């Protein structure tokens, strides 16, 4: 079966600093892949490269078997049109009410009218456990958890085939984190989508992920079932999953 996303030897440097040093990763259709790794390990840069937000220096990025980096800008737009993204801080547009945020892509592509968008937004908000009245509020009026839910509603409103989640539980209390994880699992299943999540949160990784991969110093050092995290037999992964101070991963002090 062709992987939904396939990365080979993906490299990216910022000046003298190498962030991705040959990332290899396969994400199969309909699976939920969790990418783990410490701060600065290259998790966010990997998904930003896949989404075209950062230009990779070299390597292969395939989506549905098509080489994204070899495509024209228009072809790449078409492929990426079927993706959705939940940003770490929500990245909701301050200048727009919640309902316009949720239906932004559908409105931008003129797939629905503004009147239809209000109904569609109410439906999408209900899907993430929010009342339709929230649609009239501005993002600044929402709590962190509600902002995450609205951002999730926005990410899935256009029913993408691939959804990326950037640290979806960061900044939330454990209960709200579990709620968001539950919503992510439900939404991904309902859409039959492929999901890629980056996180440091082990509880979240086990709840969301079917598969997991660990990135360290710009390389994937392990892939396996998310359920085995903490008992993988890989010393680095197990240290990370258990949050242990002692082990092969040491804290590097920047000079």
């Amino acid at each position, binding site marked *: 079966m062709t992987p939904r996303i396939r990365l080979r030897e993906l490299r990216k440097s910022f000046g003298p600093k190498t962030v991705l040093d040959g990332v290899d990763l396969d994400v199969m259709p309909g699976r939920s892949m969790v990418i783990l790794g410490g701060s600065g390990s290259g998790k966010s840069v990997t998904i*930003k490269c896949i*989404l075209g*937000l950062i230009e990779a220096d070299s390597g292969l990025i395939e989506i549905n078997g098509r080489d994204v980096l070899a495509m024209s800008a228009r072809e790449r*737009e078409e492929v990426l049109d079927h*993706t959705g*993204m939940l*940003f*770490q801080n929500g*990245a909701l547009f301050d200048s727009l009410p919640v309902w316009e945020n949720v239906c*932004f892509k559908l409105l931008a592509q003129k797939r629905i009218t503004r009147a239809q968008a209000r109904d569609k937004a109410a439906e999408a908000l209900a899907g993430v456990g929010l009342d339709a009245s929230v649609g009239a509020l501005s993002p600044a009026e929402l709590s962190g958890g509600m902002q995450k839910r609205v951002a999730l509603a926005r990410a899935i409103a256009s029913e993408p085939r691939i959804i990326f989640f950037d640290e979806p539980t960061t900044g939330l209390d454990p209960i709200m984190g579990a709620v968001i994880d539950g919503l992510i699992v439900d939404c991904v299943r309902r859409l039959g989508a492929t999901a890629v999540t980056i996180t440091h949160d082990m509880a979240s990784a086990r709840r969301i992920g079917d598969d997991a991969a660990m990135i360290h110093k710009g390389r994937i050092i392990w892939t396996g079932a998310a359920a085995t995290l903490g008992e993988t037999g890989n010393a680095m992964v197990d240290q990370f999953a258990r949050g242990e101070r002692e082990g092969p991963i040491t804290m590097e002090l920047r000079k």
Partner: protein
Amino acid sequence: MTLAPVDWVAALGRAALDLCRTIGAVALFALEGLSHVLRPPFQPRLFLRAFLEVAYFSLPVVGLTAVFTGMVLALQSYSGFSRFGAEGAVANVVVLSITRELGPVLAGLMVSGRIGAAFAAEIGTMRVTDQIDALTTLSTDPMKYLVAPRLLAATLAMPLLVIVADVLGVMGGYLIGTFKLGFSGPGYLKATFDFLQVMDVVSGLAKAAVFGFVVALMGTWCGYTSRGGAQGVGAATTTAVVASSILILALDYVLTEAFFAR
């Protein structure tokens, strides 16, 4: 520690290269922004919002600046010209100064402080909070959505603001001329319009359009390229205002040469 001469030369070279790189980046940004102004799909709602922000909400500050400038100009030129008996030229000097130079330049500087800063702060905040990346993931080109409507709105709104500034500036001179300096009202107005030529007004409006474009360009560019959180957004805002103000003054000279040099 003292620097060897070769280090000074190297530092100068680096600064020159940085300047060239920045000029090239701004030029490419401007070209891309302009290409989105001309290519559909257009963003009429965003254009109208930006137009209202530039034209309507800048009216008080531009209007007040123009009125007081006209008043000061009348007073100063009267006190200067009276030394050699040329008080009669006050109306002519006021209208020429306002329409050719002070109207567009002062309106440009005021709009730079208001709108250039606002564009840089808004877009810069969007940059550091991932909202610009979010636009891309929602199949929307940030240049088309954020930059093109603002460039067009400021370029079209500034000449309208300058028309108002011209009228109010002349009115300020008229008020001082008639109520304080003893000119007759009809006489002052006759002197104003007898001397005024179409080219004086048109050149001022053309300058205004260029200044509007420059203010929007520097505001959007500084915001779009800002980095590093609140401090980065603050720096982008300051740079936008300073750069657009200097560019306005420099371009004013270039355009004056182009319009009036013999």
